[in-house]
């Protein structure tokens, strides 16, 4: 079949249409509110997207753990920027929400549609703020860790510079400086003025810790003494019982002894036999 190249025509038509579209797209329905609404919603969506991109970048920066290349300034800037964006988005969504509720008094479906869009945007913004908050928390933790590490480094650097003593040393890392003396003497600066305060704080902390330990020790002592009190009571009871038993046993033995040592039994038996014989003889012979 005969192929006719109508691309040029096609392009012409598209140009015509594209020049028409701005006229066509806007006043589609009564009230500019909806299209305005759409435009604003569109903007908000786009800004949320850029905000999340920035947040990702902030997360990457914040996760860096190097002590020495500190990007605090950038991080601060970015944080500020993101915060601004979020507040701006917040206000925009508020206006959108209000507009969605007031406009479309006729068409229920459109109102529903608008409110659902607003809801979706709100949830996205909420997610964004939550992520932002998480990142900020992470950043404070990492900063704390970095500070610890930096302090450790600072201390070790100070002590290593104090212990190493080679002559005419020129510069040393952060906390040491030099004073060259005449006659080839070697001296070194130990530490800055803040170490005095830290050492005082340390000493006081130490004292506190020792006092705490002492309190624990006292409690243990009290517990042990309590236990032993009970043990002593039991011992006391047992000894009393033993005493009573032994006394009673002694009395019983004494009675037995008396019984044995006395002749009562014998006399009684002889008497009985005698009486028996007397009776026997009397009966037998009388």
């Amino acid at each position, binding site marked *: 079949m005969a192929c006719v190249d109508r691309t040029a025509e096609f392009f012409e038509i598209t140009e015509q249409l594209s020049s028409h579209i701005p006229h066509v797209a806007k006043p589609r329905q009564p009230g500019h509110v909806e299209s305005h609404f759409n435009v604003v919603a569109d903007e908000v969506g786009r800004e949320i997207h850029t905000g999340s991109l920035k947040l990702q970048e902030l997360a990457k920066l914040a996760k860096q753990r190097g002590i020495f290349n500190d990007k605090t300034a950038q991080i601060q800037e970015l944080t500020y920027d993101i915060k601004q964006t979020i507040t701006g988005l917040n206000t925009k969504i508020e206006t959108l929400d209000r507009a969605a509720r007031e406009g479309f008094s006729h068409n229920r479906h459109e109102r529903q549609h608008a409110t659902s869009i607003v809801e979706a945007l709100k949830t996205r913004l909420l997610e964004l703020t939550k992520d932002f908050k998480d990142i900020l928390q992470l950043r404070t933790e990492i900063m704390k860790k970095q500070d610890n590490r930096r302090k450790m480094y600072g201390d070790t650097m100070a002590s290593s510079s*104090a212990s190493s*003593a080679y002559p005419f040393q020129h510069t040393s890392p952060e906390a040491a400086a030099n*004073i060259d*003396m005449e006659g080839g*003497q*070697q*001296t*070194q*600066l*130990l*530490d*800055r*003025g803040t*170490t*005095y305060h830290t*050492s*005082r704080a340390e*000493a*006081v902390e*130490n*004292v506190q810790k*020792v*006092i705490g*330990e*002492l309190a624990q*020790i*006292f409690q*243990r*002592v009290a517990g*042990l*003494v309590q*236990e*032993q009190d009970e*043990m*002593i009571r*039991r*011992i006391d009871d*047992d*000894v009393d*019982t*033993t*005493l009573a*038993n*032994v006394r*009673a*046993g*002694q009395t*019983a*033995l004494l*009675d*037995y002894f008396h*019984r044995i040592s006395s002749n009562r039994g014998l006399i009684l038996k002889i008497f009985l036999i005698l009486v028996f014989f007397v009776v026997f003889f009397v009966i037998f012979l009388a």
Partner: protein
Amino acid sequence: MSSSSSGSGDPKKMRLLSLTLYRWKPDHPVELSSHYDLSHFPFFQRKTVQEHIRFHSRLICARTPVGRRQSVEFEQNLGNCHVYVHPSGLAAAVLTSAEYPMRVAFSMLSEVLRLFQDKYGGQWENTDADRSIGFTEGDEYVKKFQNPAEADKLTKVQKDLDEVKDVMLKSIEDLLQRGETLDSLMQKSTDLSQTSYQFYRTAKKNNQCCQLY
């Protein structure tokens, strides 16, 4: 430093060598009062040592910015020089042996400065030549702080607390031993009571005519 007898690392030999007060100037502080305790140096070296100490303290004080504390360590554990420049311009430098705790030295400096300021408040701001204001308390302080364990309250509290902790630990051990003894006693007393009961029963049984059961 020429001679020194404080470099052996013995914790008992914490010594305070000198205390000097200056009016701070960026190049050459004006000495206001100085006190030394060089009893550990041989007699003929004392003069030279004293001159050295003066020179070094002045130099280190000059290099310290106002309102800062600084500590300088001398070679081979000879000692330290602790300097504190009060923001008002009054500075104090103290030379100690290497084992002397820095915190105690600085607290002493603060105290001495405060006392000096109270006593001679207006007299030192205008001096330009080395003077020797009769600050007798300086000597007292040097003597008092020869033994940092007693002079500094924080160290004293720490020491007392450590002693108390030792005593308490020992008493806990004694208590545990007491517990063991009591335990064995309890065992013996239970045995005793049971045996005595048996004794009583047997004695009683002897007394009554056997019932043959």
